[in-house]
């Protein structure tokens, strides 16, 4: 298992390099010019110098390794400097955003907590609802609960987040006035009231994201439980006189959780992607919204970095899912 993990980790490096090259080549075609906003009174040669300072128009065999060096060497150095007060990165050039002229990673780090709060809570809420629902509807297959649950998950699966988001805003914040429709990111949580306020404003975006996670996972959980409930070992467990609760919640559940846990790992990058739309609806200024504004403003270094972060998430969580599957299911042997 360890050798398998190491082999996969080593293989992930060329994959990520290749993906970043693909993103880079795609962005290379972009027509935008970061100097478009500069006043016309600025002389052409000054503009040329500004362009040079931002690194625009360099051939790809210079700009791509440079970006890699900035992302993988200089940014970790900056992080070490920040935490340990050293000065490793002094005099090094970091990747600069064309929009704000400040280092790309600084902005990403500023925006990341908002996304993590919303996505993380939605993830936990989603699975906390989906797993019990999946277990119960499989156990009572074709009951009223199961039929209703299947219908609701199908609806949750089909309603796109940009509609469900707008719908809950109309219902809960316009008609009922219970929750705010705009996420206030300047809120500092330092007292009980502000914590309640934070929960209050997180409720709607979390609800929308969690609905999607719940409907996907509970369908999966249900079918996984159904596969296991008809197996021979369940009959054996019942025949030897185990209580029904022990049969379902220990024997069946533990075996059904194996595929569900890999789905949990695989859905992490998915909900980060889904958060792009949800953040736009609720005006959460997380990394999804940052990506949209960066694309609209032609801020190529920012787009490159953010897209690459999404790619890293996908590759890493695919790897985690495969390794977890091997660890949890003794029948799977990769070596």
């Amino acid at each position, binding site marked *: 298992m360890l050798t398998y993990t190491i082999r996969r980790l080593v293989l992930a490096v060329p*994959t990520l390099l*290749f*993906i970043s090259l*693909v*993103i880079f080549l*795609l*962005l290379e*075609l*972009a*027509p935008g010019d970061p100097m478009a906003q500069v006043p016309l009174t600025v002389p052409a040669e000054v503009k040329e110098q500004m362009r040079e300072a931002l690194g625009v128009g360099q051939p790809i065999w210079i700009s791509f390794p440079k970006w890699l060096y900035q992302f993988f060497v200089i940014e970790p150095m900056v992080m070490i400097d920040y935490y340990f007060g050293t000065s490793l990165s002094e005099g090094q050039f970091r990747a600069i955003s064309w929009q704000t002229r400040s280092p790309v990673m600084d902005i990403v780090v500023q925006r990341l907590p908002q996304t993590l709060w919303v996505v993380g809570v939605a993830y936990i809420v989603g699975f906390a609802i989906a797993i019990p629902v999946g277990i119960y509807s499989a156990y009572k297959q074709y009951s009223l609960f199961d039929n209703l649950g299947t*219908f609701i998950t*199908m*609806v949750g*699966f*089909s*309603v*796109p987040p*940009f*509609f469900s988001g*707008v*719908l809950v*805003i*109309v219902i809960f914040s*316009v008609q009922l006035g219970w929750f705010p429709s705009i996420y206030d990111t300047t809120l500092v949580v330092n007292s009980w009231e502000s914590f309640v306020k934070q929960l209050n404003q997180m409720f709607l975006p979390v609800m929308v994201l969690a609905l999607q996670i719940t409907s996907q996972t509970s369908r999966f959980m249900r079918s996984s439980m159904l596969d296991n409930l008809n197996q021979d070992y369940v009959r054996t467990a019942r025949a030897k006189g185990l209580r029904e609760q022990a049969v379902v919640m220990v024997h069946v559940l533990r075996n059904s959780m194996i595929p569900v846990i890999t789905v949990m790992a695989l859905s992490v*990058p998915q909900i980060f*992607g889904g958060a*792009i*739309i949800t953040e*736009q609806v609720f005006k959460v200024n997380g990394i999804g919204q940052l*990506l*949209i504004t960066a*694309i*609209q403003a032609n801020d190529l270094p920012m*787009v490159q970095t*953010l*897209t690459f972060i*999404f*790619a890293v*998430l*996908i*590759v890493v969580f*695919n790897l985690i899912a495969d390794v977890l599957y091997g660890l949890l299911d003794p029948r799977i042997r990769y070596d």
Partner: protein
Amino acid sequence: MTDAAHNSPLSDPIPDKPPRSQWEEVWSQFRRHRGAMISLFILVVIVAGTYLGPLIWRADPQAIPSTLDMIKQRDARPIYTSIWDSGAKVQWANPLGTDNLARDNLARLMYGGRVSIAVGLLAMALSIVLGALVGVLAGYFRRLDSPLMRLTDLFLALPLLPLILVASLLFREPLSAAFGVEGGTFVLIVSLIGITSWMQTARIVRGDVLALKEREFVLAAKSVGTRPGRLIRRHVLPNVLSPIMVSATLGIATAIITESALSFLGFGFPPDFPTWGRLLNDSVDRMVSFPERVLWPGLMISLTVLCVNYIGDGLRDALDPRIRGR
């Protein structure tokens, strides 16, 4: 066959109907899935409404009346609003009301549906063709298997939504120049969705082809000298048709959602060009005063996708020979 039947073949009951074909079996199984049948009905109604509706409801979705008429007629509410709000501005000429430029909401909803459904179908077709091609080639020719599956894995590891967003901005200008603004966007969105959604189909098809390749009928076909191209068309493709059909159905749903999401984020069709996602996006700013402009397009998207998903479910059950005939 028992001995008695063997001895007296003439006493066998003679079947009065010819044996049912595979597709009749599938259809009869599909009809038993209640959700799928209801969904099929609703979907047919929606598609007929968007494609045939404009023949009956002849309002022009793009026509803006002259200034004075526009100010008089714009921002009308749907007729049903007058049930609870007698002061609401309603016009019998516009059953679903008008937008802020006095264009008819019902006509816009119909034309928007045309575009959304067309994008869904074409993008699905493209993704299925790509997926089936890659899957069959990878499954059938051992030499192509490894590189093609590497390519599939690579596509699966790409962050697709960000890349679609980036690419939709990059290629907009050249395609608009070639096909006109609306046509260019249409080609762009269909190809972007198609190119980024073939991977699951390719994987499923490859798995099935790998299993089929070992079967006797393929060996038999090979032994009489059938060429690979003909073998694939005649023997392999018909047998992998059912997984392809299921993923085609589900592909329509994904494509419609992606198109609407792109339009919603402002990366899809140009403003003023009605598609369901675009209508939703345009109305979000004023949804407090005019909730119907958000509700109707959103409901249509959700309902279409829901129906397509249910049909996919029913189709999967109907095409599964282990369930069929139960």
